[in-house]
């Protein structure tokens, strides 16, 4: 049944080729998405830098605010984890890396006697934590592929509200930082309260500090700025996460495509061998059959069929009647 095996292999190769087409397409899409994500990160940078600058200037001018966003609590009783994953898989270990770090942090916080809460971005984290029976306060899906500032605002305002009401005493942000196409790192960074030292350290580089006029007074401006700052930070994290997801997907799809190539080569070899085997055995059968026949008869001439008939079948017999033509 060598022909049957060959047919099965041919079908298998066809299916691997189809899979390869899909993974190749996904690889190319992901590659173009990385470029776009990087452009978006670059485009968002001026705002982030400027807003940090302005806050630094305000702080430098002695703006005092009682904003809860800046109230540092050394021993928060309730920590919320804001976990950013993707909506889809097929991105290598991207989602599981984020989830694993979040799990570890949550376990550590629980061991320290702290109450933990969860806010998730991305379907993968949502379904994972739901499956594990963890209570998820809010989940935001459908934004990680191409995050907009509007998305960041939505998430940030939810978290800010919870934080300002005192329900969360600290917010930890778990996401993937994008360094380059080849390097991404999962990090856990404090999101709230905002890091005061970072804000105040920011503007020191630029020469003598100008004496600003403020309208309205500095405290009021800072009060309005801090939520924007939180949004901008979250937006940056979403963009980073999105770029990392695309980079991971591109890598995963590239290795899937390479693997499909290998598989096709290997299967083709097996198929060719199977075909060769079946051809060889067919030839063997023909040759064997011919030999068996010639062994029976001695000379190949004997194979001629009319030689098997005697020239005159009736000569050996006595005839009662004479031949008509004689």
């Amino acid at each position: 049944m060598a022909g049957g095996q060959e047919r099965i292999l041919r079908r298998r190769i066809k299916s691997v080729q189809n899979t390869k087409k899909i993974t190749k397409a996904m690889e190319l899409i992901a590659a173009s998405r990385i470029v776009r994500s990087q452009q978006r990160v670059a485009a968002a940078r001026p705002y982030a830098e400027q807003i940090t600058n302005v806050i630094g200037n305000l702080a430098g001018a002695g703006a005092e605010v009682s904003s809860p966003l800046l109230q540092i609590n050394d021993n928060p009783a309730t920590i919320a984890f804001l976990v950013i994953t993707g909506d889809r898989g097929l991105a290598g270990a991207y989602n599981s890396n984020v989830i694993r770090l979040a799990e570890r942090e949550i376990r550590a916080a629980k061991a320290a006697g702290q109450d933990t809460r969860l806010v998730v971005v991305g379907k993968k984290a949502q379904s994972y934590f739901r499956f594990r029976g963890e209570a998820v306060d809010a989940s935001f899906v459908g934004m990680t592929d191409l995050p907009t500032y509007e998305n960041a605002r939505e998430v940030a305002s939810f978290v800010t509200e919870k934080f300002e009401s005192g329900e969360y005493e600290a917010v930890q942000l778990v996401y993937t930082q994008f360094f380059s196409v080849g390097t991404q790192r999962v990090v856990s960074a404090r999101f709230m309260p905002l890091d005061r030292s970072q804000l105040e350290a920011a503007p020191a580089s630029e020469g003598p500090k100008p004496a600003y006029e403020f309208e309205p007074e500095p405290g009021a401006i800072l009060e309005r700025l801090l939520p924007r700052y939180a949004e901008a930070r979250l937006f940056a994290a979403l963009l980073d996460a999105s770029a990392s997801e695309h980079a991971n997907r591109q890598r995963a799809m590239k290795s899937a495509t390479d693997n499909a190539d290998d598989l096709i080569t290997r299967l083709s070899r097996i198929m060719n061998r199977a075909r060769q085997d079946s051809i060889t055995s067919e030839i063997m059968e023909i040759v064997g059959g011919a030999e068996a026949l010639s062994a029976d008869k001695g000379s190949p001439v004997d194979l001629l069929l009319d030689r098997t008939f005697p020239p005159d079948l009736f000569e050996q017999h006595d005839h009662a009647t004479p031949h008509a033509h004689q």
Partner: protein
Amino acid sequence: MTLQVELVSPERILWSGEADMVIARTIDGEIAFLSNHAPFIGALGIGRVQINLPDGGVVRAAVHGGFVEVSNNKVTVLSDVAELSGDIDVARAQEALRRAETSAQSDANAEELGAAKLRAELRIAIATAA
């Protein structure tokens, strides 16, 4: 001496270049910046930002909240949401205005609707001024 102006939204730089004058609306009122203006930081309300170019041209943008910082002849407008006059979809703004006006009679959420109406009016005003 001209001003270096940057109009920045969270997602990108909307406009940057040199200008003679920048007019913006802070939450306390309108303010104009010429070169050598004293260092200034202000919170912006819903209003227009107008940039007068050295060649006499004018750039207008609708800005819905944000901040302006001025120092060393550099004006930075950080807007939460901003649209240049050329990018505004007038039909959509008018639609939004009509929606805000019709639901203003029924809906209790007056503050949000008032802001929506203000935004829509601003968009239309800026798009048609250009």
